[in-house]
């Protein structure tokens, strides 16, 4: 429904047929809840400029906690004017209310007149409003109307117990919440930063150098705050508020607590270089915010003498590579306690050494890591070399993610290969070691469908060394009358 329709006297809950009967020329569009939700998200993103604590109140509302923020905009009234005006410029109409409680602001924004409810005046502001304003469902409102209760004033001072008995606990709770007798926190859309610094510009800025310079200045402010607390940032975010309402957010994890403004600038410079056009400044940014989303204890260290800053250097290298390629792309290799070749090693993001919060923020499941480390404590991972008496390394240095099927010929069905064809080239086997029999672990193979593998280390006549396996135990898992498959051969890895 738009303003023109409202002027004609149509109301939102009207059936389309009725409305068409009144005005045949009416244009109607289907409701698109998904698009509405997306728009609401975008507006919420934009509202971030007023306070970092923005909550969604689907389907049509946003909750902003402006405690301690209003003075930055010249008071609550000025903030409201600014908000309405800026939204209007984007073609959005908003009704705004400021109040002590979420419930009261909700009611006044939708049904009230004066947008600002002063401290302690919730009672007076609510009294003349209809009962719908209490966020109750239509049935309750209808029930109350039957007994002659129309306005909030009619119920607000009544004894709670009978009301609760008749109309449910929720209804009473809504009253208490609106009056501030019961606490109702706003659920923030985005994680609240541990520390933040921001800067607004009267004229939007667009050049990369200006943006980076501002980031460095903000990092210096952040540095002071964090230094006082003895902390460093593990997860940083820059929010770039474009003049036309779009918000770009760049997140950066770090391998070690970080405060140094010059390094922060460099990391974001790398990130911006990769993003290129994706981070389009459009008509420029009119506000920048740098926030430290996750922080960690960071004690100043004496550097230099013992060369003890190697850890810091390594962390910085990981940060820089991570800023450009994504932190998940740079990994440490950790052994896992299993004999299944493809699971015997895990690539652990190199930065996620210590802080589980950073891991969670990067989307890694911390629970699995705990289970794995428990497993590692239980029994150290097998050292491949010790229990194998071969002169050659027993594991390949390159492993194919999907073993490649080959045609192999063996003298006997369960014997080693004599020659095999891989990628259309025939290889004669000169020397072979094996089999090394590896069966699937029972918990990975509950159905018992996975076949046992016999691994062979082979050296071809040319000297190339490869890791082959045959799938299925002959005459036990395959090759029986009921399952007459021939054994399948795969090439799984390359030795040095």
């Amino acid at each position: 429904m738009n303003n023109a329709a409202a002027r004609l006297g149509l109301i939102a809950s009207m059936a389309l047929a009725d409305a068409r009967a009144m005005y045949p020329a009416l244009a109607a569009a289907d409701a698109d809840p998904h698009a509405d939700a997306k728009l609401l998200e975008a507006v919420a993103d934009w509202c971030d400029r007023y306070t970092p604590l923005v909550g969604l109140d689907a389907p049509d509302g946003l909750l902003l906690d402006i405690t301690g923020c209003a003075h930055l905009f010249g008071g609550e009234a000025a903030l409201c004017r600014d908000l309405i005006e800026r939204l209007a410029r984007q073609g959005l109409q908003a009704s705004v209310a400021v109040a002590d409680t979420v419930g009261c602001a909700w009611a006044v924004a939708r049904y009230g007149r004066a947008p600002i409810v002063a401290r302690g005046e919730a009672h007076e502001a609510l009294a003349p409003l209809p009962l719908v304003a209490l966020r109750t469902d239509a049935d309750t409102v209808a029930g109350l109307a039957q007994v002659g209760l129309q306005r909030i004033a009619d119920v607000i001072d009544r004894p709670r117990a009978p009301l609760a008995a008749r109309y449910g606990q929720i209804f009473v709770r809504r009253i208490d919440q609106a009056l501030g007798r019961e606490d109702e926190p706003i659920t923030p859309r985005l994680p609240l930063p541990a520390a933040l610094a921001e800067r607004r510009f009267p004229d939007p800025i667009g050049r990369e150098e200006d943006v980076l310079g501002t980031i460095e200045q903000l990092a210096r402010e952040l540095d002071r705050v964090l230094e006082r607390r003895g902390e460093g940032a593990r997860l940083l975010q820059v929010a770039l508020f474009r003049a036309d309402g779009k918000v770009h957010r760049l997140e950066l994890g770090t391998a070690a607590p970080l405060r140094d403004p010059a390094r922060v600038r460099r990391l974001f410079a790398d990130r911006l270089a990769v993003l290129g056009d994706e981070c389009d400044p459009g008509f420029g940014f009119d506000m920048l915010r740098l926030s430290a989303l996750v922080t960690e204890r960071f004690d100043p260290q004496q550097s230099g003498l013992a060369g003890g800053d190697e850890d810091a250097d390594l962390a910085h290298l990981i940060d820089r590579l991570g800023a450009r390629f994504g932190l998940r792309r740079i990994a440490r290799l950790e052994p896992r306690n299993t004999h299944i070749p493809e699971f015997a090693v895990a690539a652990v993001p190199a930065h996620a050494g210590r802080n589980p919060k950073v891991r969670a923020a990067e989307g890694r499941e911390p629970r699995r890591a705990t289970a794995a480390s428990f497993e590692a404590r239980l029994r150290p991972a097998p050292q491949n070399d010790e229990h194998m008496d071969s002169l050659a390394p027993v594991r390949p240095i390159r492993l194919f993610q999907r073993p490649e099927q080959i045609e192999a010929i063996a003298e006997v069905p369960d014997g080693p290969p004599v020659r095999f064809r891989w990628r259309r080239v025939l290889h004669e086997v000169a020397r072979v070691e094996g089999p090394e029999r590896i069966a699937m672990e029972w918990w990975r193979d509950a159905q018992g469908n996975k076949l046992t593998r016999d691994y062979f280390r082979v050296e071809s006549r040319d000297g190339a060394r490869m890791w082959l396996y045959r799938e299925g135990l002959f005459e036990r898992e395959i090759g029986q009358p009921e399952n007459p498959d021939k054994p399948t051969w795969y090439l799984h890895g390359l030795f040095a």
Partner: protein
Amino acid sequence: MPAAETATLSRLREAVAKIEGSDLSALETGGRVLPLGAGPVDTALGGGLALGALHELAPAGALHLGAAAGFALALAARAGPRKPILWIQPDFASMEAGALYGPGLTALGLPMQQALLLRVARPTDVLWAMEEGLKSRVLSAIVAELTDEGAAADLTATRRLTLAAREVGGLGLLLRHRLSPEPSAAATRWEITAAPSQPDAFDGLGRTAFILSLLKNRRGPLGRWTIEWDHHARVFAPLSVAVAEATVDRSNRAPLIRAG
């Protein structure tokens, strides 16, 4: 080579070194090297593989990529017993020729915990990351894989990398999947072939053996050697070519099988 020609050659080398901004004499006398442990190779290299320089490795054919990667790993294992190494692998390389496999690293003498693995999407990213790695003081070796023939790592790019390596003194190894005919600023260029190993008493596989062809050497003669890598002692040893070749021809004998 007659003495006059040698003198001319060394004069020319110095001239080139001056143009490229490197002090050849300093490199030759005071520059740090990484000895391989195999006498003849070290002699040709003037003591060992130059640190603070870029070296190019390539397999003799697609089949020998494992050997080339293994040689790079062996060099990295020798370069730093405790410092981490950085291995840069483009996504395409791991799909085409297998991803770097941790237990295999440990088995070859480089504990997998010591390796940092960076996976990148494009060849130009490989070079950027390698330069970053070479500038860092904490890494003992940086190995970068390149799948294409040379377009990405041309003379300019390799020169950049060489300069970055010289500043800090790290070991840069450019592992090309195919030998590139393009000129490059690398200090050495190697072609690596997997050599049949010396069998053990049970006719099983022996120690990892390589045939190294030194195709370019800015500080000495070229050559071709067969060497063996001892992954316990982390040292190379020369392998007599005659013995190695004698072990090849055993086609008439059925291979003896050992229980692994």
